[in-house]
Structures are given as C-alpha cells and as structure tokens.
C-alpha cells in the first residue's frame, strides 16, 4: 500500500494512478469503518470489496478537491445497509439502524488515513515473539480458524483464543505508546 500523499487541486484531472493512490491510502480507514458499523461480522470483507469495486467503477464521479473519505465512507455505509436489509443475510449479526448511525458518525470523524499508525503497528508486530507472530499471521493472513490452528499445532483451543485476545490488547497498547512517543 502506498504512503504517498496525493495533492489534488480542483484543476487537476484525476488520473487512474492518483485514484488508485487515494483508494489505497484509505483502505485501512475504510476497513475500520466497515467493521465498526457491521460489528466485524462475516459480511465485512464482501462489503469492503463491493465498496472498492463501486468506488473504482464510479471514479469519474469523484470531484477532485472534495473529501474522498466522505464519499468512500458514505458508499460503504449504504453497502452495509443493503447487506443488512437483504433477507438472506439475517444469520449475520448487525446493530440496529440507530446504533449503526451513531457508530457511523463516530467512526467517520475518528478514522482516516493514518500511515503513522500502520508504521507503529508494524513495529509492534515485529517485537512479538516467534510463536506469537505465527498465530497472528495464521489468523489474519491465512484466515485460519483458531480452532484449526490449535488442532494442527497441538495446543488447546481455549488457550489459543486467550493468547490472541491478549495479543490484540497488547498491540493496541503498543500502538498508543509509540504514537504518544
């Protein structure tokens, strides 16, 4: 993902490369926005994909000089709402419409492109022990279930879940410390 900051002025026409950079810069924030309003349920990756495809296919509609974040988040909000209202998706958990609006409003203000957070997080991940990094990679990169990971590594399912819980908390603390330093 690119960390390049793209300067867009109203007189610039948005090239594909510029648009791609904008989209890449906003991926982390867009993903955070979606999983916060959709309670991190199993639809989130599909919603992100649907949103990205919509944004790319409609890139001509984006006006340089306006807020890309606002447009992207609004797209994601409606994609999430559509998923929620699709009767065939009732098995996935969603907040009420009111709570979704509240969280969307908070997330919209709070989340945005923050390359320094990813830099801090990379350093925090690099400081994990080998086994700790292994389980984090299995869950987040290979999308293995923790139950499967536990079975294939001979560890207990319960202790694997607790380990991941502990690592999440410690990574959040680590990000905060690095940013405050």
């Amino acid at each position, binding site marked *: 993902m690119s960390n390049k900051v793209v300067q867009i002025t109203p007189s610039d026409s948005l090239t594909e490369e510029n648009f791609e950079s904008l989209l890449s810069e906003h991926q982390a924030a867009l993903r*955070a926005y979606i999983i916060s309003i959709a309670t991190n*349920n199993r639809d989130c990756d599909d919603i992100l994909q649907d949103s990205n495809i919509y944004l*790319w296919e409609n890139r001509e509609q984006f006006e340089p000089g306006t807020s890309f974040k606002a447009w992207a988040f609004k797209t994601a909000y409606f994609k999430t709402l559509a998923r929620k209202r699709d009767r065939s998706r009732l098995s996935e958990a969603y907040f009420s419409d009111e709570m979704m609006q509240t*969280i969307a409003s908070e997330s919209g203000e*709070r989340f945005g492109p923050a390359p320094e*957070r990813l830099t801090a*997080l990379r350093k925090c991940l*690099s400081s994990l022990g080998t086994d700790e990094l292994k389980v984090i990679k299995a869950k987040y990169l*290979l999308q293995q279930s923790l139950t*499967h990971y536990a079975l294939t590594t001979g560890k207990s399912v319960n202790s694997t879940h607790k380990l991941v819980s502990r690592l999440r908390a410690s990574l959040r603390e680590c990000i905060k410390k690095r940013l405050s330093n």
Partner: protein
Amino acid sequence: MKPSPETVELVEKSLDQSILPEELVRLEELLAENPADLDYYLEAMQAEAEIPLALHTLPERRQQRAWVWSTSIAAAAAIAMLIGINIGTPSGKTALAQESTSASKENAGATITSLVGVTWENKAPSGLKLTSSDEGFSITSGLVELTFDSGVRTLIEGPAEIAVTGRNSAEFTNGKLVADVPKGAEGFTIVYPEGKVVDLGTEFAININEEKASAEVGVFRGEVEVYSNQSKSPLKILESHAVKQTLSNSTPFASIPFNQDDYIRKVPSSEFSWKLDEKSTEPVQQLEFDVSHLVWKPGKYRATFKYMLGYDALSIQKVTLLCDGEIVASDEHPGRTGIFLRTHDNMYTLDIARNDHRKGKWVLKATVHADTTDRESLSVLAPDSSGIMLFSENIVSKDAYLGTWEYRHDNNVHRRVFLADHTAKYYFNGTPSKQFNGATWSVKDGVLVLTNHVKTHEGTHLMEESHILNDKGQLVIINQPYRNAIKVKRGKQE
C-alpha cells in the same frame, strides 16, 4: 474512564465473530450508555482492521521456526482479499489492476500445485507462484508438488530445500525430488551444490543428502546428463540407472543400484477403493490401506468409508492405524455405509500423538463385514459391496463449502448450492428444483450436514446428507453413492 468488563468480553466475542444476537443487543445497550465503552469498541475495531494490512507489509523475519500451513492453500487468495480489491476489468496499467495471467519473463517460474502434510522450516512462501526473485523454501516434512511454467512437474519430499531460478530450472540444496519432464520441456535443469542435472526427457530423481554430503541421481524413463562442478564433460545416465557423487571431495560419479521405491513419483491420493472379498468364507474381513505417504506429522486424521456399489452395505467394527506393525491409534465403534438411510457413524478418528509419529510404513486396517439387511430374496450369497475410503488430516472451515458444486449421477447433472445464510439450493439438469426448499446446513468437525424435510406419500421424513472435502478440493457426499462434486467457478454459477 475504562470500559466495563462486560463490554470488553462482548467486544472480544465480536472480534472472534462469535457474538450471539442477544449478546449484540446487550453490547448495543452498553455502547449507547457509556462513552468509554464506545471509545474502547472503536479502538478495538480500528486495530482489528489494521492488523492484516500491517502484516502484509511486514519486513521478513530471519530464522523463523516451523510453520504449519493449511493445506487448503488459501494463502494467495487471502492476501488478495486483504485489501478487498478485485479489479479484473481495468486496462492493467496500474499496479492494482495488473493480473499475472500470462507468464512474462519477470514472472516466469513455478507454481505450488499440491501440498501433503507439509511443515515449513522457515517462512512459508507468501504466494503460490514462485519466481527467480523469490527466496527459496525449506520443509522439514511432507510433499510439495511444484509445477514449472515449462510444464515440468516436480515432487519434493521433505526434509528439503529448493529455490526456483526460472521457468525450467531450480537450485536444489537438500532432499528428494522427482521430476516429470514432458515433451518440449527438455533441458530442465536442477543445480545442486556440486553440480547439475539436465534432463533430456522424461522422468528422473535426485536425492541430495546435506548431512552425508552426497548426491544420487536416477532415471525412471528417458535419459539425463549430470555435470560435476569439477568437470566440463557431462555423464549421461540412461533409463533405470543411477549414480552417486560424494560432495565432500567431488569424486567422479559411481554407479549404484537404482532403488525406485525410495522415491514418491506422484502426489498420493487420499482416496482408496475397497471391495469385499467375494470368495471369503469368513464373515469378518480386514481391509488394509497403505497410508504411508499421507502421514507426515502428528495430528488428528480421519478415515471415512463411503459405499458406492453392491447388494450389501459395509458394517465397520473398528479401525486401527499401525506404524511398522505397531498400533498407534484406533477408533472402535459400530458404523455402517450403504444406500442412503442406512449410513451412519462411518467416520473414524485417529489421533497420532507427537511422540508416536515417526517415519515408517503406516497402514490403516478396518475390521468389517457385509451387512445383508438390504437384501431381499436374492440368489447371490457372496459378499457384494464396494466403495472408497477417504483418509485425511484437515478439518475444513464452513467457508470452504460455500458456493456451487456439480456432480453427475445416473447420467444427470446435479448442482448443490450452499449459501452463506445456511440455506441451500438444488438444480437438476440446469433447472431449479424445490427439493431443497427449507433445507439448512451446518458444519461440525469439518463435516457439512444438509438437513432437509422431504415429503413423500408416506409423510414427511428428515433427511441428513453428510459432506466432506477431499484433498483435491472435491465435495464428497459420504452417505450417498454419488460421484464427487467439483466446485463451479464464479461466473458460471446460477
């Protein structure tokens, strides 16, 4: 202010994607009442979103230890999904839009096309496609099938170390490798510490033993040329011949007997056919299966018996797993596989503990007998039953079942569609059928059970069909005598 412990617990459940609907209602109440809880929730979700993106761009760490990679080989797909971008239509000018559909010079190399029981020694490859710009990989055990862009198929047996150097070449430092070189790919080259092997067509093996500092090359079919680093002239090795080179002092090649059985030439199948012995006068029979090439590490393995043909069902009493004649694991319970409604408990779990796993001859033995309950008044008296046994290690997640599966039975084309909301659809010869209306599915211990209430003139019956995935990614309906189903690609689905 800190978040409440209840909020922390519910947020964790949300991160694990295991939160129940009533728990979500409670979480919503907590987030609405307490700003500190909402703040905690947002912070947790933000980090959760960022972790995979940060991992994707993490600098490589040296000297990582053994890594178990799921043989579902979802790694490449998982990486593509991380940034949620699946742009297939744009012109291909931008980095995002590029697809490596054709092998340009820069992208030429080899693809990992199969994995059996692999344990990676260091970092697992980040994707399935390997080129000369990628680091090699090492495995401590298992089999990796690497198919080169030239069409050469190699099977590498661990412990082994290899690096792809081009569309028709590799550096091989340690382990056993068998290469099948098709027409047009002659010239396939393996470089090893003290020389290289150039294939002139068609199939050869190389065994590099790092500890003993030796290299052996044998030819199954065709001929190869072997070059020592000390000599410019090659030595030609013909079919069924083998040579050995001692690496430490680079002595000339010495002829040795070629023990072809020492090498695995094809990716072992996890499906074994069985048939009851018609001539047997004993009521109880033993079925035996050599599963040596499927047992590479400790863990939970599963043997599933599926009936396909015959007058009789198969009754199973006990399944045992032996290594070199010694019992390592067993599962004893009555099971049956026959026509539908007569199949139950036909899966047997065999746990190989860490201390019990070793290299050797692994044999699965099943104590069985013919179950003639389904026979009516037939003149055939000899046992008549055949089918397949599936032996596997992996337990797949429910997501692996999602999508459309097509199989043929009785000259008809059948499609089953498993949807994310746990309902299912059924198509008969391309036409939607109401047969699965109201049916639901769930996955437990890696087995998908499709539950359907079927109405007949006798009333409504509960039908449960069980499915597992085999090593080829095919769907096996284990209590119906149907052929395996193949996944239908997106775009060709209903």
